[in-house]
């Protein structure tokens, strides 16, 4: 019972170094043609997972399947994967052409075929003129393009990216990000992309796997991750500025924090029936209605502005709610000053409610 629409399957993958567990019984299914981003802060195991998929690290336990084939103990080159590294990892003593052909030569491909593939990759990546240069003579962006080309020529099933844009400056990063996205659209290969940058994750991914301490906390589309974070960590991790959290209590459809009380009508509970319990309410700064939109929101209130951070496209306003800092994202043109009292509106449907103890979504 081969499952053709699954490109990469990871089963109970565990990796330990001595007493340290880096990956813990991890399961993950990646669809054919999917762009999956592994997102997490450093040390969460995302690069380790990628290295395991690539075959550069040997798991302590568990198995990996690519296109239905158990590749757990195969050499990297036998897995049908291509990989792009943060530091480009171009062979300094070889020309661009040499870099591109190295893997093909190792696979004993006929020279004519190699030439054809290089020509094709060079065309796709618009680097025909660079083929006879050494990496030292290339700019950072060009180098990364060569690195992608190296995966491209091998005509692989799965592309692996290990923080490929981290070494580039902001402008170049944005350009190359678009290029990678376009590449994916054109090629339709499965791509697994490791990053700690949530913008890259949100913009590129079909689905995002948020990792922490060797586990996948949530796997979902960017929309799901953003709107329905499975737990407080994911909620906090995604979004900038990050989500506001209010500590309080959930009692029969109402969230209470101090003298604040918010009716949760319209909030879709993860489980139909839950008992009263301590809870945390999360509200994204951009989901707080201000100005003309307040009227449309189910819940209304008023806050005093502490601090204003104008950012051009929008304005971040700091206030206090239930005795804690509370961020509100307003329109860039909004004119507020510290001390102003402004009306706000909340929509429980856009909020997130977490169990205070488990920090899981309620």
């Amino acid at each position, binding site marked *: 019972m081969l499952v053709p629409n699954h490109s990469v399957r990871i089963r109970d993958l565990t990796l330990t170094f001595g007493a340290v567990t880096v990956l813990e019984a991890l399961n993950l299914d990646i669809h054919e043609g999917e762009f999956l981003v592994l997102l997490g802060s450093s040390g969460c195991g995302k690069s380790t997972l990628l*290295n395991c998929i*690539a*075959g*550069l690290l040997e798991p302590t336990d568990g198995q990996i399947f690519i296109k239905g084939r158990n590749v757990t103990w195969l*050499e*990297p*080159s*036998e897995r049908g*994967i*291509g*990989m792009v*590294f*943060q*530091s*480009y*990892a*171009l*062979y*300094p*003593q070889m020309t661009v052409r040499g870099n591109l052909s*190295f*893997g093909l030569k*190792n*696979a004993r491909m006929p020279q004519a075929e190699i030439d054809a593939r290089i020509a094709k990759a060079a065309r796709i990546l618009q680097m025909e003129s660079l083929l006879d240069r050494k990496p030292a003579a290339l700019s950072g962006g060009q180098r990364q393009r060569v*690195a992608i080309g*190296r*995966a491209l020529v*091998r005509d692989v099933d799965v592309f692996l990216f*290990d923080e490929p844009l981290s070494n580039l400056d902001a402008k170049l990063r944005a350009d190359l990000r678009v290029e990678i996205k376009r590449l994916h659209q054109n090629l339709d290969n499965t791509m697994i992309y490791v990053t700690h940058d949530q913008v890259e994750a949100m913009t590129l991914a079909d689905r995002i796997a948020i990792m922490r301490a060797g586990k996948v906390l949530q796997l979902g589309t960017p929309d799901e991750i953003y709107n329905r974070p499975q737990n407080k960590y994911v909620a906090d991790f995604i979004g900038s500025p990050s989500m506001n959290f209010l500590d309080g209590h959930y009692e029969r459809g109402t969230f209470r924090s101090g003298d604040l009380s918010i009716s949760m009508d319209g909030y879709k509970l993860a489980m139909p029936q839950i008992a009263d319990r301590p809870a945390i309410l999360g509200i994204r700064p951009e989901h707080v209605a201000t100005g003309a939109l307040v009227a449309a929101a189910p819940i209304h209130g008023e806050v005093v502005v502490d601090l204003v951070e104008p950012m051009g496209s929008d304005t971040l306003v700091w206030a206090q709610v239930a005795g804690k800092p509370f961020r509100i994202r307003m329109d860039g043109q909004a004119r507020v000053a510290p001390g102003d009292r402004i009306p706000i509106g909340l929509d429980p449907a856009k909020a997130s409610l977490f169990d205070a103890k488990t920090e899981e979504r309620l």
Partner: protein
Amino acid sequence: MADPASLNTLAALDPVHGRTGAVGDMAGPRGRRPRRALSRGNIMLYGILLLVSVYYLLPLWVMVMTSLKGMPEIRVGNIFAPPMEVTFQPWVKAWAEACTGLNCDGLSRGFWNSVRITVPSVVVSIAVASVSGYALARWRFKGSEAFFAILLIGAFIPYQVMLYPIVILLRELGLYGSLSGLVLVHTIFGMPINVLLFRNYFAAMPEELFKAARVDGAGFWRIFFQIMMPMSLPIFVVSMIIQITGIWNDFLFGVVFTVPENYPMTVQLNNIVASVQGVKEYNVNMAATLLTGLVPLIVYFASGKLFVRGIAAGAVKG
């Protein structure tokens, strides 16, 4: 080369730089500013370096000067004075005439033997050490580090202690008395330091490069030969220098593991230097010493900056 008089111009030419100057200069304002041509710090700096150079050059000076003097002048004159009458006779004698026992053909008979011993020993020992260092740095397996630790501790064993067991071992292997046996011995004793250097060097090379090559389907050997080696010239130079020096200067193994017609140059050197025929012929001794040291010295001078670069990568990171 840098005599005090020229320091003035040298210092003026020196580009202004954040890291130059003595303690007093540190309080100065940031950024570029003209530097005093002959600062107190510079005089001290070059003064110390010149003094140090004297200490290091003194023995060489003594060796060269003495080797150019005749014995009568050595007996009366002081050893630091240049020769009043330059003679190359001691060099000729050391190279072609000095006797050891019955053989009066000086160092010349040992020179080619030394070459024949040194070349394969250096090649084999570096080949083995580089591959081992590469395996230790990039392809660790269970216990590999333990073996390496043992190897390092082995560097502390005086090798004369291991002479007899190794002799017995080589006898059992049937290699005793052959050139391959001697090469093997040099490979063994060159291993700790060279494996350490290569291991550190390869470990300091970018790991992603290695990973990329693996994804590209290159295995252990292909990565070594096509990716690692072309990038490792400095460390190969360092290792080569250390091995050439050690093997060229070796006396004990050269004499224990060969027969007289294949004795290396150091055996003749020992015989010239240690066998005193009444009066010690210091001039011949010094000429012989210099002649024997010439090969490693030339390798040093020729390798120049590569040595520091190689050391930088081989010894500093780890």
